[in-house]
């Protein structure tokens, strides 16, 4: 019983801590995920913006370097005179300064006059279309931006470029299945500047960089945006340029170590970015790692979506952060639970120990001690309990002393009564003799006056003695009942406790079966107690060790002749029983089976008298060898006068 109390306390503490821990774990974890990953996403978005900026700047750089050239006088002259070698030289210089992969100059019709690269002076055979030039001529102003150039064109500019542009498509899980196996076009950042002199269009200066397999741009982006930050030995940032949905320039590592050129983008990205032209952020598995990625469409000079610009941040760093935080939550919860267990133990002890002691003390009281040891007094409610317990035991002790006194008193009263009755009877016999002979003497006629007078004195004195004896007899019993409302169950309990020790010594058991909701009875408590005691004492005399005397009470369904309600009291013993020839003499005065001097035979007759004076009856049932039962019926309201 004690262990379950202690474990209940500990269990509830643990339960609370655990619950709190779980809740904060869940809530905290959720908030953490949202904020950390949210932050990461924001970051990637911003990184994409930065990349875009850088991309745009590159385009501008190309623009600027071309533009400035067109303003040079020497250049204009060379163009006018179609001095191809000079133009080649100049183009070379522009390309060098601008870091261009290709550059060329066309005439006013768009025919390339000169270019850097192998076929520097092209022939008149048909040339591949040059979209940037076409647009510049059309708009008659500077055109710049992304341009997809065919393999042919690239080849004619510089076969190395065409070769560089060639990308084998690598099958990628998660991407849309593709029909093509190879990318041959090149994604370029180009610009075309119409050369005007004195209002006359002379030609178009064009140039650009091939993005396919370009490492400078993507690495510069990574360097600038991510500042080459690393986590667990890997760069956390990635930049990619896609031509359609194929990676053509990237620093995403391939499985074999190099760059993942030729791999494709996931289907949902392709759908959202390439087809719908939206910006798209997601957590994605890129080759082997999880990234938080952001993509936006690359539009060419005719505003057509031709590719994707993508940025990715290694998720691992953030994921690890989240797990570490959650782990510390868990640790805190565990620590809390350990603390709760300790606290629970301690607290339970503080409550249980005084309770333990009180239980032991109660057992001591049951065994008879009136000075039980309840240990040191605690504080608060426990102290109140302990003090109340002490008072209760003290009150018990007082009541026990009182009832002992009362027992002694009533025993003494009873024995005085018995003594008085016995003495009175003994005296009355010889007194009869004295009285009769004195009176007989007084009847004689031959007495002289003196003798007569003396005899008279004797007669009067004898009369006095008679009166004294009668008074003594009357005194030894109070006949007038002193009525009050009595709880008969309690009366029986106290009667039983009066004879407890005697019964114990005799080895006879006493059992009480009190009736429920027993009505109160209007009776003389002391007289009725003597009734119960008398029957109980007789029962004790009739029983031997191992026998039992059983008291029971109940509200009676029977009414008496005066139609009064009453209660039944039954005293049953398992003693030697009463022989049937004695049964109808049982209540006769002076009936006794004891020897002279050992019992007056008055007990049961007096008992019956008391019960009858209360308006009740006594019935006896008995069987020799089995035992006897005395059944008392007494009305609630006492005898009707």
């Amino acid at each position: 019983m004690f262990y379950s109390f202690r474990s209940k306390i500990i269990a509830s503490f643990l339960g609370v801590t655990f619950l709190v821990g779980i809740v904060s774990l869940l809530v905290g974890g959720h908030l953490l995920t949202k904020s950390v990953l949210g932050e990461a996403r924001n970051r990637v978005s911003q990184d994409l913006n930065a990349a875009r900026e850088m991309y745009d700047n590159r385009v501008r750089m190309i623009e600027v370097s071309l533009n400035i050239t067109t303003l040079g006088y020497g250049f204009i002259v060379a163009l006018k005179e179609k001095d191809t070698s000079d133009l080649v030289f100049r183009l070379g210089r522009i390309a060098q300064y601008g870091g261009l992969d290709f550059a060329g100059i066309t005439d006013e019709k768009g025919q390339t006059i000169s270019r850097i690269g192998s076929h520097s002076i092209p022939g008149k055979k048909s040339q591949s279309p040059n979209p940037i030039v076409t647009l510049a001529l059309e708009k008659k102003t500077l055109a710049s931006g992304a341009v997809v150039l065919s393999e042919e064109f690239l080849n004619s500019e510089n076969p190395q470029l065409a070769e560089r542009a060639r990308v084998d498509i690598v099958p990628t899980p998660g991407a849309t299945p593709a029909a093509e196996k190879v990318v041959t076009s090149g994604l370029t950042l180009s610009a075309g500047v119409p050369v005007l002199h004195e209002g006359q269009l002379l030609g178009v200066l064009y140039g650009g960089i091939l993005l396919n397999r370009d490492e400078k741009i993507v690495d510069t982006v990574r360097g600038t945006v991510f500042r080459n930050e690393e986590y667990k030995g890997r760069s956390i940032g990635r930049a990619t340029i896609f031509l359609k949905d194929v990676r053509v320039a990237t620093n995403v590592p391939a499985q074999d170590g190099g760059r993942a050129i030729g791999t494709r983008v996931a289907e949902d990205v392709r759908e959202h970015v390439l087809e719908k032209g939206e910006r798209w952020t997601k957590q994605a598995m890129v080759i082997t790692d999880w990234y938080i990625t952001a993509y936006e469409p690359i539009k060419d000079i005719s505003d057509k979506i031709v590719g994707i610009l993508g940025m990715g941040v290694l998720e691992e760093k953030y994921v690890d952060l989240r797990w570490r935080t959650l782990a510390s939550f868990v640790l805190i919860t565990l620590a809390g639970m350990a603390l709760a267990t300790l606290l629970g133990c301690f607290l339970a002890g503080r409550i249980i120990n005084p309770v333990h002691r009180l239980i032991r003390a109660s057992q001591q009281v049951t065994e008879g001690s009136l000075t039980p040891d309840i240990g040191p007094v605690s504080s608060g409610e426990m102290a109140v309990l302990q003090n109340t317990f002490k008072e209760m035991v003290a009150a018990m002790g007082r009541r026990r002393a009182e009832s002992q006194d009362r027992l002694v008193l009533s025993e003494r009263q009873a024995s005085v009564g018995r003594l008085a009755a016995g003495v009175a009877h003994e005296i009355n016999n010889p007194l009869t003799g004295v009285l009769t002979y004195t009176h007989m003497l007084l009847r004689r006629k031959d007495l002289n006056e003196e003798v007569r007078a003396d005899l008279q004195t004797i007669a009067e004195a004898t009369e006095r003695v008679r009166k004294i004896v009668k008074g003594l007899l009357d005194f030894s019993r109070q006949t007038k009942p002193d009525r009050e409302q009595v709880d008969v169950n309690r009366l029986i309990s106290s009667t039983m406790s009066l004879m407890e020790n005697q019964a114990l010594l005799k080895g006879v058991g006493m059992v009480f079966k009190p009736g429920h909701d027993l009505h109160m009875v209007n009776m003389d408590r002391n007289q009725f107690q003597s009734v119960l005691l008398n029957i109980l004492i007789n029962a004790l005399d009739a029983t031997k060790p191992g026998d039992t005397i059983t008291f029971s009470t109940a509200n009676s369904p029977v009414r008496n002749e005066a139609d009064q309600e009453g209660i039944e009291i039954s005293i049953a013993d398992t003693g030697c029983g009463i022989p049937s020839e004695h049964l109808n003499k049982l209540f006769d005065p002076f009936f006794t089976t004891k020897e002279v001097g050992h019992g007056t035979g008055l007990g049961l007759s007096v008992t019956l008298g008391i019960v009858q004076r209360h308006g009740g009856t006594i019935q006896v049932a008995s069987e020799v060898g089995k035992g006897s039962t005395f059944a008392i019926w007494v009305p609630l309201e006492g005898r009707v006068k």
Partner: protein
Amino acid sequence: MKILVVDDESIVLESCKRVLEDCFEVIPARSADAALEVIRREPVGVILLDIKMPGKDGMSLLREVKEKWPNIPVIVMSGYATNETVEQVSRTEAATFIAKPFTPDELVDAVAKVIEKEGKP
């Protein structure tokens, strides 16, 4: 007329005899058995019975007498003259009750009353 006096105390037997012998033949009996013997043997007019006697007690003798010889009136004597005993005795079939110690007059009155009642059918 013969009066049977039953009491275990000889002083009581003698006192009764002394008081009644002028008018009656008083037969003493010390015990219930002796009393029964007398009743069986001789025609007894009145029985004076002490209600408390050891052995066969007075009450049972009273019942037996009333059973077997219902016409003989019985006067019960007792050293315990309380209201209860009077009550209890009055419920029996005793003719009357006198309490010890009694004066000769009281005894004679009791006997006279009983005989008078007996006379009336």
